[in-house]
């Protein structure tokens, strides 16, 4: 099991004990806020983010002109944050989508066919589970080259293993149910059964897992960008933190530069985690009453 998911499970146990629905509410409201900012960003943005400022605009502390100050290029931080939200969320969501598709296909095929295919695919899955994720992503991103699509691909291809495990387990139980047997006796093919009967039954579990993978994807993007593997032309939150560190602005005490992007990442990831819990409870009836 991916250690992030392992921890998440324990967080869930904890949640169950605490039973605080305010947390789930906080998660959904915060996430909604960031999604709205990302979608309507260009309308809200007071400055054109790509405009470099003059020398006297460099690293200005927060003021009336620049609510969150300026960066080492004299750009407005708030405007950067808003445009960064689009890139960070886009990368997170796209990578999650890839991860979900791979996880579902491998999980369902593995669980449905069983035997040799199952063994082979699960060995393959274990391989991805055991390899430390960050070095793997670093090596892949370094070889593929740094642009936004490669980053999405790299995150997606390294984070599906946990999903595949969950989907496989669920498939194993779904395929034993009577309606699947009946469908087989009616002459349905494997593809039809997997797509129309197993997938819809597996989906609730996958949905809750999606939210968790999204939180991992966003942390991954931030980390990869920080390590210099981000797309230089796309100023995500991670890229902002990368520049804040590389330019020495962070250690020079420009708190307005390195704090806000970090807070945004924490807020979004936290929201995803809280939402994941809420989904799990709503969509996965097994958890109820525990």
């Amino acid at each position: 099991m991916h250690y992030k998911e392992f921890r998440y499970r324990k967080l869930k146990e904890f949640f169950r004990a605490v039973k605080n629905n305010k947390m789930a509410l906080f998660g959904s409201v915060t996430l909604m806020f960031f999604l709205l900012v990302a979608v309507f960003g260009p309308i809200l943005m007071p400055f054109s983010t790509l405009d470099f400022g003059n020398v006297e605009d460099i690293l200005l502390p927060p003021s009336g002109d620049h609510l969150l100050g300026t960066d080492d290029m004299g750009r407005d931080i708030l405007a950067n944050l808003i445009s960064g939200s689009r890139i960070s969320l886009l990368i997170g969501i796209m990578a999650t989508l890839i991860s979900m598709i791979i996880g579902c296909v491998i999980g369902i095929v593995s669980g449905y066919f069983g035997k040799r295919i199952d063994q082979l695919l699960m060995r393959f899955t274990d391989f991805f589970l055991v390899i430390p994720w960050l070095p793997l992503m670093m090596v892949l991103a370094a070889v593929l080259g740094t642009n936004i699509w490669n980053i999405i691909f790299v995150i997606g291809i390294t984070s599906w293993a946990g999903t595949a495990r969950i989907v496989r387990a669920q498939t194993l139980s779904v395929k034993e149910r009577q309606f699947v047997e009946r469908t087989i006796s009616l002459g349905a093919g494997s593809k039809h059964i997997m797509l129309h009967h197993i997938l819809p039954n597996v989906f609730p579990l996958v949905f809750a897992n999606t939210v968790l993978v999204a939180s991992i994807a966003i942390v991954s993007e931030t980390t990869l960008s920080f390590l210099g593997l981000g797309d230089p032309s796309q100023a995500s939150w991670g890229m902002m933190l990368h520049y804040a560190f590389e330019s020495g602005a962070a250690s020079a005490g420009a708190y307005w530069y390195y704090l806000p992007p970090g807070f945004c990442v924490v807020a979004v990831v936290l929201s995803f985690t809280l939402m994941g819990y809420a989904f799990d409870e709503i969509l996965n009836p097994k958890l109820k009453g525990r």
Partner: protein
Amino acid sequence: MKKRSLIQKSIYAVITIFAVLVFNYLLFRVLPGDPLSMMMRNPKATPEMIEGMRQLFGLDQPWYVQLYLYFKNLLAGDLGMSFYFKQPVSSVIGARIMPTIIMVGLAEVVAIFAGIIIGLIAAWKRGTRIDVATLGFSLVTYSMPTFWLGMVIVVVFSVNLHLFPTSGILTPGMTYQTTGAMVADYIRHLILPTLTMSIVLIGEYALTMRNTLTDVLSEDYITTAKAKGFDNKYILRKHALPNAMLPMVTLIAINLGLVVGGTVQVETVFSWPGLGSLMYEALRARDYPLLQGVFLLVTVSVVVANFIADITYSYIDPRVKE
């Protein structure tokens, strides 16, 4: 543990390591551009070095000869030359192992102790504010990028409070009168990276401790112990804790992946000269042989550690069913 499952687990571990090696081989050969042209992109790579690589890995030979040479060199511990350091990869890596082991080892010890104590208190005071605060702490550290935590810690403790040095392992240009003075300087540099790494881990350990302890406390033998009239502290120490500690073994192994990722980030932020920052330097310099070498070492170590933990666990907890 049954002998059969031991053999099976060993085979799986060997297969995984083999897969890692083949993956490493393919990564730099199958993807667009052959390894030589990729290495030539690096301005630090001299023609002699590239010729050396060609010879060493037989890059002008058919693939099966290359695969054979790759494994042969690997077994001999020859990972090629680092472009950036102009030294064999194996000796560059060798010099960086100790700082990482010291930093990560210390952080693990601190995190395990702190995690156990916090988890214990949370489990004991279930549902109180302390319990909720533990959850909050765990959630926030879970959501936080490790490098960012490191940046915040540097600014607060080094830049603002001037308590500790910002980076490195020893103060540059310093001459030490005694060994003790050098050790003291080393420790001053060690504290902040260790603190960052520990914070990342504590939440996890505290959560596990709290949850398993809660489970254990509801077991029948705890009720029995209470009925016998033992006091709470005694029950906690002698009956509950030893059983609640078992999952920690697995946890530390599962966590190794997280620790490796965290090490890269923490060492980069603090310029701690270990394997993590070496990986970052190799990445920055596009020093592919070095990057490959560190990746290989780190990955194989994690696989082996997981395997060892897996076996240890079934020895210390006979309830584990195969």
